[in-house]
């Protein structure tokens, strides 16, 4: 019997990266084939950014702090949110939405035949370049606010930021993956977009605003059960506010756990698909 590990792990990683590059290339080709549509989508993102910034500007015209976040700290938060949302939309959102269609038409079969991990294939195959600028704009906003805040950024801070941001991305991705997997065994009345909108509305504001006594339950649920509140808030806090080791450790843990859980749910769903199909 042929040994499955034909290539050493390093070469496998390289081939997955190359494949990711190929997905990026061909997705770009596809987007540019519909230039008008692509430009319209980019315009949409610009408008959305305008709305966010206008909202930000209006609020800070009238107030100097939101739950302890001053203007440029909040701007950093905003930039972090925009960049992270952009990253998720670019890499994963379209694929998760299309997953339901693949299940319905039975075209999911094709992805189970390839000598590549299905989760990788299904998560990354289409890259939505029209939302990619969000990542850079978000990054720019973060840069501007760091400049204005003028504080030195130590190595520890930067490290915590990067790691918790990664965890946040992992959590958002895992949420989407679990949602998408449900298309196999469940009739959902809410579209994936609606549920994603909900998740992103939770990560859109600093989690400090949930400090009100009547909101404690909601805060607990979305910090420990479905950690949407941690996704943007913790990395932003790590960078421009106080480093709280407890919540950082929990964020990292939660990110890893959600990746494991979502992979488990995904594989279980695929198994269900295969045992239920004919």
């Amino acid at each position, binding site marked *: *019997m*042929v*040994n*499955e590990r*034909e290539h050493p792990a390093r070469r496998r990683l390289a*081939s997955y990266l*190359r*494949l990711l590059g*190929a*997905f990026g290339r*061909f997705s770009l*080709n*596809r987007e540019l*084939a*519909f230039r008008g549509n692509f430009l319209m989508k980019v315009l949409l993102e610009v408008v959305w950014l305008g709305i966010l910034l206008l909202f930000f500007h209006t609020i800070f015209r009238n107030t100097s702090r939101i739950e302890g976040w001053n203007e440029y700290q909040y701007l950093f938060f905003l930039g972090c949110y925009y960049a992270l949302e952009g990253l998720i939309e670019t890499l994963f959102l379209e694929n998760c939405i299309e997953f339901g269609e693949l299940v319905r*038409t*039975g*075209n999911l*079969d*094709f992805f*189970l*035949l*390839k*000598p*590549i991990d299905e989760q990788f*294939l299904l998560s990354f195959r289409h890259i939505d370049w029209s939302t990619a600028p969000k990542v850079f704009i978000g990054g720019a906003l973060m840069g501007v606010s760091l400049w204005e805040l003028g504080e030195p950024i130590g190595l520890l801070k930067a490290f915590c930021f990067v790691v918790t941001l990664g965890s946040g991305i992992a959590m958002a991705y895992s949420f989407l993956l679990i949602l998408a997997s*449900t298309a196999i*065994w*469940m*009739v959902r*009345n809410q579209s994936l977009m609606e549920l994603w909108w909900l998740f992103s509305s939770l990560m859109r504001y600093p989690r400090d605003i949930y400090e009100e006594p009547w909101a404690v339950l909601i805060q607990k649920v979305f910090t420990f059960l479905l950690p949407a509140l941690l996704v943007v808030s913790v990395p932003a806090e790590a960078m421009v506010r106080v480093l709280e080791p407890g919540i950082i450790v929990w964020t990292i843990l939660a990110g890893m756990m959600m990746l494991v859980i979502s992979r488990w749910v995904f594989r279980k769903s695929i198994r*269900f698909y*295969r*045992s*239920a*199909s*004919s």
Partner: protein
Amino acid sequence: MEPVIEVSHLCRTYQVAQKKAGLLASIRGLWKAETRTVEAVRDVSFRIEPGEMVAFLGPNGAGKTTTLKMLAGLVYPTSGTARVLGFQPWERHDAFRRQFSLVMGQKNQLWWDLPAADSFELHREIYSLERARFDRTLAELVEMFGVDKLTRQPVRELSLGERMKMELIASLLHEPKVLLLDEPTIGLDVVAQSTIQRCLREYNQRKGATIILTSHYMRDVEALCSRVLMIVSGRLQYDGQLGGLLDRFGRIKLVRLQFEELVPEGLDRFGECKIIGPVAELRLEKNRVAQALSAVVDLPGLVDLSVQDPPLEDVVAMAFGSGAEKP
């Protein structure tokens, strides 16, 4: 020689799992699924040697596609064993998946808005194919299928036949040892069908690949396969040469006669006769067709005449007496 495919007492029974609507019902449904048992494949066993071209024949819903999917590892069997290229298909090892292909008629895996050439390139990345060898294989296949000018056109602009050819090319780029085809020529015009048949034959001869196809077109089977596995109601009813199948159940032809007004009496002296309005359908053995034709061609009021193969379902129905199962 080791058989490339070895299947033993393969069974596939599944519960018709209705997707549950409503949140609570769905979650409950994960543990306690609704049960309606369907026996799709019952106790099927066969061996296939490398380089053979085999057809799974059978009426719709007979279990051909399910068996094929089990060989591809897409579906778990309920019991029994199968080995393809030395692997258990449903364990889905990467090494296994590199060596075979599954093509499903009317299902498209190429990127819709991009030229086929781009999909091929992506395919190369997915299978990690070496550049020089890939280019050579691609050139060969493109020439064989005769689609040279079409690879740069977006797939959505191609006709159904051209799209199918692209699908087949994509499935052969990694030089699989086993090619599984599920209704590959369904919905295609006759010219496209015969091109694809020719290419598959050529590929089989050149590369020695084992080809299994399911079909309910007699034409595909006659053109390509010497060996036929007939699956009816999940059971393997016949495993042998095509000639044997046709001999066993007689070569029947349908002669369709259309008259101006009324069908004249006495047509049933030629064979089984079915009359619908001004049309009469005669069922006779092939060797009696010429005789019957020379007799009917002078009948008064005859407007149109054609000689056809009976549909496969009829052959199967005739073969097994209205689909009665054998114990």
